[in-house]
């Protein structure tokens, strides 16, 4: 479930200033300053947050970058999985559409 309206063109972003990230072997412990929630991210969701801290991207762009970054092919990691993971991250507030006021 998404936290609000979005489309395929939505540019997503993660704000490093809102996060305390503690990387571990294959998971990251992430404290989200806005919500006060602590999350455990697996390697896929952690990679998405990391990539979106560097540069905003759409579902399609992020899918491409994630495959390269994690050395996976599309069979392992279909675009639908990246999209659903991004929606989970949207739900937690760890990533958000770029033009959402208040999160900048």
């Amino acid at each position, binding site marked *: 479930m998404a936290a609000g309206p979005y489309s395929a063109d939505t540019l997503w972003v993660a704000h490093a200033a809102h996060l*305390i990230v*503690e990387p*571990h072997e294959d998971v990251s*412990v992430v*404290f989200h*300053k806005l919500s*006060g*929630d*602590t999350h*455990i991210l697996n390697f896929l969701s952690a990679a998405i947050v990391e990539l979106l801290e560097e540069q905003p991207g759409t579902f399609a762009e992020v899918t491409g970058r994630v495959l390269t970054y994690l050395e996976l092919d599309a069979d392992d990691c279909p675009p639908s999985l990246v999209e659903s993971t991004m929606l989970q991250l949207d739900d937690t507030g760890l990533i958000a559409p770029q033009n959402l006021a208040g999160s900048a």
Partner: protein
Amino acid sequence: MVNFAPVSSYSSQELAAALKAGSLEVALGPFTARAKGEGKPLRSFLQDTYRDVMVRLSLSDVTDIALDVRAPSLLRKYIRPQVIPDPGFQVPAVPLPKSMSGLAFEMGLNLVVALKCCRFVTFHAGVVANDKGAILMSAESGGGKSTLVAALMEEGYRLYSDEFALLNMPDARLASYPRPVSLKNESIEIVRDFAGGDWVSPVISDTPKGKIAYRRARPEDITEAGETAVTKLVLFPRFEAGVRASARGLRRAEAIMRLIPSSTNYHLLGEQGFNALRKMLDGAEAFEITYGTTDDSMKMVRDLAAKVGL
């Protein structure tokens, strides 16, 4: 200002009068509590189970906690008398027979510490410590945590807490909070055996939790109250009848994952709480230990304590 003195230094009449007036001030580690309540069961409970705990009869300062052990209704004051712990704000309360006033007092204190005292990150855990550091044991009820705490008290550790680990946020040290160790059912006999009958309170039977008795805090636990310790060992004990003892080292992320849900106020304290938790784990090793007997668990804890330099 009147100084604190042990419960045992006051007469029954003095204590009863202070309890009735709601002016009995009880020192509990970093907290003070103002206790109120009528009747012999509560007074005798304090005289027995809290006999070395420091109190004063007239309120000399405001307190962190105000706890009134009272009848749930006027009716229940006289007919089949019942009591509930009333900490001044709405909390779940199970009415208990008046004879179990002591249990109501303990439940009330636990609720207040869990829900209201936010100066520490509060974990549902037992803690013992020596001069080198502390062992924090986080377990579900029935995990044998209290029995372990009581057993470790016999091995040169001081009682920090049976119910709550209090993590001080700025320095990530655990605060001593020596209240009586609550023992249930079979563990009562086990602890009576190694601690000696004089250190275990009379048994309260037929409580919502079965049989309950308390292993008293010792004077040396109490006079040391106010001190703090760094956490060296984090244990997640799991009792399973008949199982062979085993210890499994936990990675830091897993320890975090298990400690956060055992906190009563972690979420409330936000970033400060997260940082304190991380800092606490910086100097600690974490293990899940599974065991079938107290002897087994003690052997393992001794080994692990030695390993981390306790």
